[in-house]
């Protein structure tokens, strides 16, 4: 049975909406809208109180219309924070262009990138890793 949604919305010039959901022992963090310069600080402030203790985390980017280097920086900071408590992370991205941006930025070296939520759960359940963990890098 799907967990409850918590939604935190911010009104910004470039709107970003963040929903979180608990599925089994994992927390899904869904980013909706644009994760760009000008809204990342607010996004960070809104994400922090929503984070729950979980075995692993899924960053769902399927509803992200646009991301820039500032947005990538926010995600990396979040990944590092979660990794400090040895939690696994998987990124879900369907849009080919946005996926390509993450590959260009080499995120795939330390965080598995998949196309669906089910694949993300499989990666986390099977403890599958990218080439290196954040710690190893």
């Amino acid at each position, binding site marked *: 049975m799907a967990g409850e949604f918590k939604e935190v919305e911010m009104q910004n*010039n*470039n709107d970003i909406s963040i929903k979180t959901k608990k599925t089994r022992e994992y927390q899904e963090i869904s980013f909706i809208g644009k994760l760009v*310069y000008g809204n990342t600080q607010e996004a960070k402030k809104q994400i922090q109180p929503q984070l729950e203790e979980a075995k692993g985390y899924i960053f769902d980017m399927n509803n992200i219309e646009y991301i*820039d280097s500032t947005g990538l920086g926010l995600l990396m*900071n979040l990944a590092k924070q979660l990794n400090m408590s040895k939690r696994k992370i998987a990124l879900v991205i369907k849009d080919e*262009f946005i996926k390509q941006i993450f*590959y*260009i*930025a*080499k995120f795939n070296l330390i965080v598995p990138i998949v196309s669906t939520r089910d694949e993300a759960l499989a990666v986390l359940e099977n403890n599958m890793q990218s080439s290196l963990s954040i710690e190893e890098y």
Partner: protein
Amino acid sequence: MVEITMCITAENKYIDFLDEICEKTLIQVDFPNPRGVCLAVHEGVINAVEATKQKYKSEYKNKCISLKIYATREAVEIHIIDEGDGISNEELEKINNLTFEDVLLDSKGRGLLLMKSLVDKISHENYEKHVLKLYKKGDIDGWRIQGGRNAE
């Protein structure tokens, strides 16, 4: 061929607007895969806004950033002009030697690298104003963004 010149004040709220103008312009001339070039422009505009804010502090909203787009289906050249201090040759050399792996765990430092990956050529001029020039050929296969790994 489309040639557009726009001036905005150096405020965050206009960045989204410039993104849309860039994309619509490139779509209008049937430039293949415009998203990559437009993201490069977006990164350049962010840098222009930041440079203006750093230099002029509370007066930044009185300063202008210009965007010039020269676009055909075969090629696009874009100039981003700001009144900031520009990039020194030392900084440029440092950036030219950086890779994404070097900044992978950092919260910042990817913007210029991303720009380099998304266009064919970047050049800078520092005179009275700072001019950043981006150039990209309308390569059908430009989907394989240079420097990037094919997804899956």
